[in-house]
């Protein structure tokens, strides 16, 4: 993504318009930005997408309101959640709400901003601004409605898609207002917008309700359309020949003599590896997909296997251990107090190593992309986490391979439902390859990964190696050091060390100024009050490229919370204290753990949340950056302690006599980031079979405080799904590299959790009035350490590796005996 510059914004954003206009005979009421002209972009193949001059919603005189949703539907029902927030303030009838998704184009990017669904940040970043947009619409409608009714403005209010005059008892519907009045209301930005009063939360009627999600019915009858379901006239199909290595192989020759014997085979396309993408890729193009698969197998490709030809998981781990010896290569992520001195003064000091294996997204919908070139326009049809980055990446790629200027290329991205994202649909190699096949064949091409080629080209979570050291004095953790060695994904995304900018620092902490890729280190910056605390990180850049290290649900929190929370139990036991009481004592909300309204950014920073700094969801000019909203850190570690108390109480921690070989383990998390915490505690009950080492998770008790809850049922679904994601990771998910290629090819070798392994799950949502934080990921991080701690409590052995295999448990038990 770093290769392509964001198009410059030509529109100044100093006011919002709430306006009704007449286009093609029908009135529109829309809220959006000035100076924008409505247009339509016809797309013959798919039937076109409506385009309106509004960012957030468009209301028509029939009273129907269409919410324009920029976020991808990945299974979180985000459209419904965002629409609930707008509808609440707009006072619109929920039955009249519809959703649509804007087409991604240069023009629409300038209007809607960056379409990027990531980091559990959709509700967090959008909540305040869309609530205000809804309220601005309501204000304009009430003013117009008062005129239509001939009533005093002060006597009028809106409710349920009506403006009501209290004095006379008369009312008029929103639809009637649009038919009778012209609305042209300006709100100066940011001053007027900032002053719009939002509803007191006790008056919520739509936010906080488990309204049925609007995307669900079509997902029960086959009508839901995913990227893989696209058809274009005269379309050919592409299937990938599995490259020799995951990355940096070079195609030397292609022998298509066998493939040419297959009827329907069209061409073997060697994909241009411009921008370092699709390295070693050869795509078999055919008139049908099964033919393309067959041809891909029949093609004989020779590769130069490249620099990672001999690299494997064991080699990477050995290199991590070697790298960790060189302290000067490390970067400090947390520096509190004087750690070395505190170790010197401690009564007990111990150090342990933790490791984690790679995992991958393995979405049920394999990656795919359909691309068409017609009338000078490139059209991409795909379900992706970012239509914007997809467009920018393809534009940059095409500019290179076609030798054209980016501004001369017309690229459009049509968004579809996404059959699972988890961070795995924010790379665009498949789109580039499909586009290159279009160039080579002159036909629209649908490229579908087989499950095997999908695994072979996975964007993996890096393997990790951790050293954790504790200094204990008077039964307290007085010093803690964590060393983390892994491949930072930042380099691939143009951030972090050697990637460029000094982009993120710990909020108020006295962190040494270093370029660090937070996505690879976050989670180590826990909320415990440890006076002397240091985290050091090493980047193993070979890993970054060799396995195409990438973001996977909670990114680094998954491995760091596993290591930190397992280790906290070890420290508690070493200090002779109960792990629950030990944690609660350190979750005291003191110092940097108190939570800070403006989390340590320089004075004058407009918004607390770093996503607003980096990936601004709307294309505001710098001086018009979005106004600040409450930080999710408010309340700090005390909110985390509260979750832990609730979960422990509900699980009956310390009150029940457990069966033999059964243990209870606890863990807490504040994922996603230090600046955007969602507070979660988990209690796991696990039974271990002492003969085989196999363990089963009997029960998970989870308490989460995500602040304001927009749709409790959806939050519950996200918590359960992510908890089982975590369970799956600690039980069985494991991706390994050998000779530069991944060893797992399908679901018999890469094993996600199935129904029979699903434990009982007790979820408590602690809703508060605080600003909403993300719910799609955090619970996935606490299950692994809670299970590891439960195994220790069940059979007295500590496995310091994720996943935990029965063999590892058994071996540890034998050693102990």
């Amino acid at each position, binding site marked *: 993504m770093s290769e392509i510059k964001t198009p410059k914004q030509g529109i100044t954003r100093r006011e919002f318009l709430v306006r009704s206009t007449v286009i093609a005979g029908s009135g529109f009421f829309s809220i959006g930005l000035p100076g924008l002209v409505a247009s339509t972009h016809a797309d013959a193949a798919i039937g076109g997408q409506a385009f309106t001059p509004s960012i957030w919603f468009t209301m028509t005189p029939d009273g129907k309101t269409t919410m324009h949703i920029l976020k991808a*539907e*990945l*299974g*979180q*029902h985000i459209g419904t959640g965002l629409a609930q927030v707008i509808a609440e303030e707009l006072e619109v009838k929920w039955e009249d709400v519809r959703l649509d998704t804007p087409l991604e184009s240069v023009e629409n990017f300038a209007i809607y901003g960056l379409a990027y669904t990531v980091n559990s940040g959709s509700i967090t970043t959008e909540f305040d601004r869309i609530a205000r947009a809804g309220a601005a619409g309501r204000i304009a409608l009430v003013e117009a409605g008062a005129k239509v009714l001939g009533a005093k403005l002060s006597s009028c209010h809106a409710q349920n898609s009506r403006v009501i005059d209290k004095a006379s008892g008369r009312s008029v519907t929103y639809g009637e207002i649009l038919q009778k009045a012209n609305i042209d209301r300006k709100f100066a930005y940011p001053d007027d917008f900032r002053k719009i009063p939002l509803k007191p939360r006790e008056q919520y009627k739509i936010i906080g309700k488990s309204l*049925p*999600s609007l*995307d*669900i*019915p*079509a*997902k*029960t*009858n*086959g*009508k*839901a*359309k*995913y990227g*893989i*379901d696209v*058809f274009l006239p005269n379309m050919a*199909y592409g299937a990938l020949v599995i490259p020799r290595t995951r990355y940096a192989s070079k195609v030397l020759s292609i022998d298509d003599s066998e493939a040419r014997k297959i*009827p329907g085979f069209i061409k073997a396309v060697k994909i241009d590896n411009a921008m370092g993408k699709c390295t070693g890729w050869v795509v078999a193009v055919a008139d*049908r*997909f*099964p*033919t393309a698969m067959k041809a891909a197998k029949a093609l004989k490709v020779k590769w130069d296997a490249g620099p990672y030809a001999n690299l494997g998981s064991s080699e990477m781990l050995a290199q991590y251990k070697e790298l960790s010896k060189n302290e000067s290569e490390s970067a400090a992520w947390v520096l509190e107090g004087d750690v070395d001195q505190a170790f010197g003064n401690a009564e007990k000091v111990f150090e342990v190593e933790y490791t984690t294996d790679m995992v991958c997204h*393995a*979405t*049920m*919908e*394999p990656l795919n992309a359909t691309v068409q070139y017609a009338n000078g326009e490139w059209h991409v049809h795909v379900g992706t986490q970012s239509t914007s980055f997809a467009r920018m990446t393809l534009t940059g790629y095409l500019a290179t391979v076609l030798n054209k200027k980016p501004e001369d290329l017309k690229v459009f991205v049509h968004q579809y*439902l*996404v*059959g*699972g*994202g*988890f961070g795995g649909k924010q790379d665009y190699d498949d789109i580039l390859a499909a586009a290159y096949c279009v160039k080579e064949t002159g036909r629209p091409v649908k490229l*579908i990964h*087989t*499950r*095997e080629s999908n695994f072979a080209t996975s964007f993996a979570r890096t393997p990790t190696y951790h050293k954790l050291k504790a200094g204990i004095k008077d039964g307290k953790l007085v010093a803690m050091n964590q060393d983390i060695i892994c491949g930072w994904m930042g380099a691939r995304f143009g951030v972090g060390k050697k990637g460029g900018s000094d982009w993120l620092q710990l909020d108020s902490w006295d962190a040494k100024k270093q370029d660090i890729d937070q996505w690879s280190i976050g989670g180590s910056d826990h909320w415990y009050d440890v006076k002397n605390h240091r985290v050091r990180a090493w980047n193993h850049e070979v890993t970054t490229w060799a396995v195409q290290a990438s973001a996977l649900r909670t990114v680094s929190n998954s491995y760091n919370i596993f290591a930190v929370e397992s280790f906290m139990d070890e420290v508690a036991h070493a200090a002779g204290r109960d792990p629950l009481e030990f944690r609660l004592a350190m979750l005291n909300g003191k110092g940097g753990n108190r939570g800070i309204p403006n989390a340590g950014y320089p004075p004058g920073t407009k918004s607390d949340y770093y996503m607003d700094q980096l990936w601004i969801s709307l294309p505001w000019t710098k001086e018009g950056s979005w106004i600040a909203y409450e930080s999710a850190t408010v309340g700090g570690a005390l909110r985390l302690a509260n979750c832990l108390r609730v979960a422990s109480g509900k699980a009956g921690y310390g009150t029940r006599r457990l069966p033999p070989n059964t243990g209870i383990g606890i863990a807490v998390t504040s994922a996603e980031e230090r600046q955007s915490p969602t507070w979660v505690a988990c209690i796991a009950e696990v039974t271990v079979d002492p003969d085989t080492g196999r363990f089963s998770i009997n029960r998970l008790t989870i308490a989460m405080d995500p602040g304001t809850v927009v749709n409790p049922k959806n939050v519950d*679904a996200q918590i*359960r*799904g992510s*908890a*089982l*994601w975590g369970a*799956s990771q600690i039980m069985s998910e494991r991706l390994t590299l050998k000779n530069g290629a991944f060893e797992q090819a*399908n*679901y*018999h070798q890469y094993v*996600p*959790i*199935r*129904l*029979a392994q*699903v434990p009982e*799950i007790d979820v408590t949502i602690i809703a508060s009035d605080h600003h909403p934080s993300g719910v799609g990921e955090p619970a996935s991080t606490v299950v692994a350490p809670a299970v590891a701690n439960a195994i220790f409590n069940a059979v007295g052995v500590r496995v310091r590796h994720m996943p935990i295999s029965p063999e590892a448990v058994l071996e540890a038990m034998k050693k102990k005996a």
Partner: protein
Amino acid sequence: MPQLSLNGQSYFSDSPPDTPLLWVIREELQLTGTKYGCGMGLCGSCTVHMNGQPMRSCMVKLADVDENAVITTIEGLDPADSHPVQKAWIEKEVPQCGYCQSGQIMQAAALLAANPSPSREEIVQHMNGNLCRCATYSRIVDAVHRAAELMKEGSSHV
């Protein structure tokens, strides 16, 4: 040309005989509710009914489909898309990303057709071959129980 009886209609397929039925259904007949997940019968996303039995359509070659076989896909499960399983799936809000759910629903409908009151254990055993990466599993079990109730209510009105 092989003839297929699918969702009450006759189709002729001109796909090669070794084509997995899944791809005939999805890409030739363009009934895209049936999903590709693994191609090895490991995930259940491609589940359809053949003569009422749940079947992984990625594992059956076109040539092996009996011309008298009655095939039903998610699109043909109910003329009004209101099979008790579909109703229960909506009521319990089972789907998240939704990609695997056609297969889940077809698998569950086949279970209930054979066993109108399955126990939890029977549901788990019958549904265990269907992967869901969003892990909607606990709601799947709830919804199968609910669909069983709806079927009983429905039959008592007849």
